[in-house]
């Protein structure tokens, strides 16, 4: 299976070579073989020994294309089948890509201090749409693309969580 570590732009092939028993196996990463021993696996993640080193991984978010995981305290994004997806993406570029980006989301949890953009108003990429306050700091949520504000999902004083939709831009 092919894995691409997005943050480091490193792609490696990895597979299970041999299962020794339920918890132990030999795996191959690139062209090197390693001993992998699963110590424990529960809702907190998985603890394993890779050769003679202890590691802990927690799967934060997984879908069919990629996963966000925490390995020994480092948050990384790993995508699977990178080559296949690159080919698929090239042939499907078009309106479908932009509709999924209608939603402008908040990068932080916070309270709305001021709504700068107006409904049906035009915005350019980078324009401030709404200003949030958290921890005595003000953070501006800016339009991620040029367009028109179809809908504002928040008003002054409302509370938002991280990744909440604050506006729809078409």
């Amino acid at each position, binding site marked *: 299976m092919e894995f691409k570590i997005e943050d480091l732009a490193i792609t490696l092939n990895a597979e299970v070579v041999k299962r020794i028993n339920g918890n132990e196996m030999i795996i191959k990463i690139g062209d090197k073989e390693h001993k992998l021993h*699963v110590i424990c696996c529960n809702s907190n993640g998985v603890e394993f020994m890779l050769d003679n080193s202890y590691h802990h991984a927690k799967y*934060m978010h997984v879908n069919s294309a990629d996963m966000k995981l925490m390995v020994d305290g480092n948050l990384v994004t790993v995508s699977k089948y990178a080559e296949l997806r690159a080919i698929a993406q090239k042939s499907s570029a078009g309106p479908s890509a932009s509709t999924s980006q209608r939603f402008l989301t908040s990068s932080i949890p916070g309270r709305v201090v001021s709504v700068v953009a107006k409904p049906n108003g035009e915005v350019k990429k980078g324009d401030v749409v709404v200003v949030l306050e958290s921890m005595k700091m003000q953070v501006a949520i800016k339009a991620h693309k040029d367009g028109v504000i179809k809908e504002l999902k928040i008003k002054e004083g409302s509370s938002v969580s991280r990744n909440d939709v604050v506006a729809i831009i078409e």
Partner: protein
Amino acid sequence: MEMIKKILTANRGEIAIRVIRACRELGIKSVAVYSDEDAQAMHVRLADEAYHIGPPSPRESYLNMERIIDAGKKSGADAIHPGYGFLSENASFVDACEKSGIIFIGPTSETMRFSGDKMAVKTVAKKIGVPVVPASDGTLDDVEKAVDVAEKIGYPVLLKSAFGGGGRGIRLANDEKQLRQEFEMSSMEAKAAYGRAAMFVEKFLPRIRHIEFQLVRDSHGNAVYLFERECSIQRRYQKLIEMAPSPAVDEKTRPMVGGWVVKLANEINYLNAGTVEFICDDKRNFYLIEINSRLQVEHPVTELITGVDLLKLQIGVASGESIPFKQSDLKLNGCAIECRINAEDPLNDFAPSSGPVPSCIIPYGPGIRVDTYLFPGCTVSGYYDSLVAKLLAWGRDFDESRRRIKNALNEFYIEGIQTTIPLHKAIMDDPAFIAGDLSTDYLDRFKILEKVESVAKAGAKDKVDAIVAAALLHSVLVRGGNSNSTEHNTNKWKESGRFTRNFSYGI
């Protein structure tokens, strides 16, 4: 002498815990106050008594004088410690405590009002021979007067508004033409914001260091200085790293500036702990900037190099006791560094990062001290400031201290929020920091923020194999452990279904 038997801390977070610990050592009962947000906070758990004082917003809780004094009366507290921030430099609060018969652990309201007036402080300093930054004698409302002052003190100059604190509204003028332009704009801004345009002109000193001296004076007139702290590494006028001793202070300068601090304290009849801030130019000239009439965030740096517990000392002074040592008893021992760990994402323009912290690992080891309110399962609130932990290291010299804090930064694990730990890691390895080449523009000068990203990535580079193994393991575990290398489960729908059944994951 008044025996203080019960102290209420009008604060939260790590400083509230700090006061509680000092109380414990002295056999004094501790009282905590908390807002809705902090009902399960560590300071509430550790205190002997805790009183709910309102909803999350600071205005209705930690800044609400009536509710806090009320809790003081209900609990029968003899004294209130204000911590830092919130009401710690609010003279009206000091008066309110006094009126209610509760001792305020800190300076008098008169001293606070005086320290808050930067012009008054400069006037007194000049009178007793303490150097101040060359500046206009008073505030100016006329551009011609400003030009006159600038001629006398020499360009470049800083134009500051007498109102608005914390680094706001400061403009630079390199020559007369620029000064006239900036004065015009600045006065308009000030008039719009405050109704008045009281400006003052100050000489601009490039490449300055921020060096402050710790002061304590008791009610019997004994004053001591507990050496200095170098606080030059700042971002937007907020300190990030503090240390003692300062590379810019030598054996001759220390007692000289210390002497000024004591003289100033005596002149204004200062009571309890405080800090006198100086800026130091590239020729090692010291200029007084201001007096902070409270205990500061970075006080542990001084505690580590002197062995003096400043909280216990504050309580003693507030009880009417004399400072139990002389200036000559104080020795500067070793080197201490403090890194302020803030819940901000340095890779995302320091965006605030609040929320639950499901897991955390606090570093320990020789010479390591951590003042924090974090514990696994706590929540970092978006209602209060972003300081979540103070990581300190003491070493026999700067290098030992630096290595210790660097290792501690690597051990420090906080899950659920972004923190400035990667920024501190980048600084601890920076050659300029190691050489002591510090100034208030340190971050910009050495492009530290650009280095942070590569430091964060370097952490992941060592783990490439582990990361790939973990990703591979996921598919193996999802298939129920029956996988064979040559079988590929190409049905992705089945895969995600099994996964949801077998795992509960995520934060």
